[in-house]
């Protein structure tokens, strides 16, 4: 679905399946390390136009809900926070319903690496709301990209709660090549 959404719509976005292909959960710090490794070590950075290779900065892009979980003590380990916010950096998109100053209060040591982006036109769409609409049989057209709407319709995703939808999708894509099915035992 991500690939469908960006294929013809963008000229600089890509989908990386490294994390999705793994059987175990990968902490965000490790995912950023993977990008750092691929771009800066394997590809030796980027040509800066004058023939010199420059080190590329990796930054996490997320919404304000993620930064709120980061500022809540106990959810993220101190080591991970230091790794993501100290070594890399993050761009946070403000969302209505999350107080950004509150969230940043606990992240003072790294505030130079945290950039907050204001939404000039508020967009409140969230995956949770989309799944709610789909469960109720309501249309999600113009809330998500058109090829994604078609894909969901063709594959009957998100019809029920989490458990049912994943088993249903198992039956759907048994013909597909590399199906990764994990039944959510929620």
């Amino acid at each position, binding site marked *: *679905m*991500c690939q469908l*959404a*960006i*294929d013809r*719509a*963008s000229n*600089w*976005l*890509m*989908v*990386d*399946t*490294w*994390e*999705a*292909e*793994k*059987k*175990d*959960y*990968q902490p965000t710090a490790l*995912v*950023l390390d993977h*990008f750092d490794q*691929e*771009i800066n070590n*394997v590809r030796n950075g*980027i040509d*800066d*136009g*004058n023939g010199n290779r*420059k080190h*590329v*900065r990796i*930054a*996490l*892009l997320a919404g304000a809900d993620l930064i709120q979980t980061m500022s809540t003590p106990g959810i993220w380990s101190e080591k991970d926070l230091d790794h993501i916010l100290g070594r890399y950096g993050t*761009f946070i998109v403000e969302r209505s319903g999350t107080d950004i100053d509150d969230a940043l209060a606990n992240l003072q040591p790294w505030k130079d690496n945290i*950039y907050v*982006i204001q*939404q000039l036109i508020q967009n*409140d769409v*969230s*995956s949770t709301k989309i*799944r709610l609409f789909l469960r109720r049989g309501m249309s999600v057209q113009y809330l998500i*990209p058109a090829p*994604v709407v078609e894909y969901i319709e063709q594959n009957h*995703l*998100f019809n029920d709660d989490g458990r049912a*939808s*994943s088993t249903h*999708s*198992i039956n759907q*894509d048994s013909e597909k090549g*590399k*199906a*990764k099915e*994990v039944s959510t035992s*929620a």
Partner: protein
Amino acid sequence: MKRNCGVNSRDKSSNLDLRPHLPRVRPRKPRLRMTVHHYSVLLHLSPGDLDMSQRCTGSPSLSCAITYKPAGFGRRHHHSSRPAWSFPSPCKCKRISSAASKRTLFTHEEARTTQRLQFRQLCDLDAASSLFERRRDAAKVRLAQATIMDTYTFPDYRLKKKMDDPSKTPLLLVACGSFSPITFLHLRMFIMAGDYVKFSTDFEIVGGYLSPVSDAYKKAGLASAEHR
């Protein structure tokens, strides 16, 4: 002149012919079995190889012994069975135009199709007279290996190869999340960040990645990774 193909060799989404090396006729059974001599080549990696492999559409460098059939042998019996990891031999190989390979806007499918075409051109490995050609062929071979083996390759088909402004710091944006499903806000996040970076910082964006979380995350409402 159109001939009937036994198999539909036209990709529906683009004009590229996916099987240029096979003639457009039903293949006949080979009457004789001939032995083919394989040559093993060990590729040694060097910093120059890395540079070459960046010019191909996205494959990390591999160091492995590969076998390939020289073009002369292959031509006579490209219909016979061969191990999956050796290179098919062409009758006539259409070179992909240099214009197509320089395009920056690649869709995922176009990138993969270009990879397959480049792989098929490998059979026409000319005698590599210069170091440049040897390294180029070595990089192409690695690319082919990655294509056949269908392993994970890091996507860099839309990564900027060169910065526009040397004075800025290159930046790469990574968005992790479940994307179940992806919404316009996820995409808009990248665009808003692009605007912010352009107007309020000294960074230059060289690419953006979506990294969907693995199935092990066990969140309610998560579709399978294959769908997401």
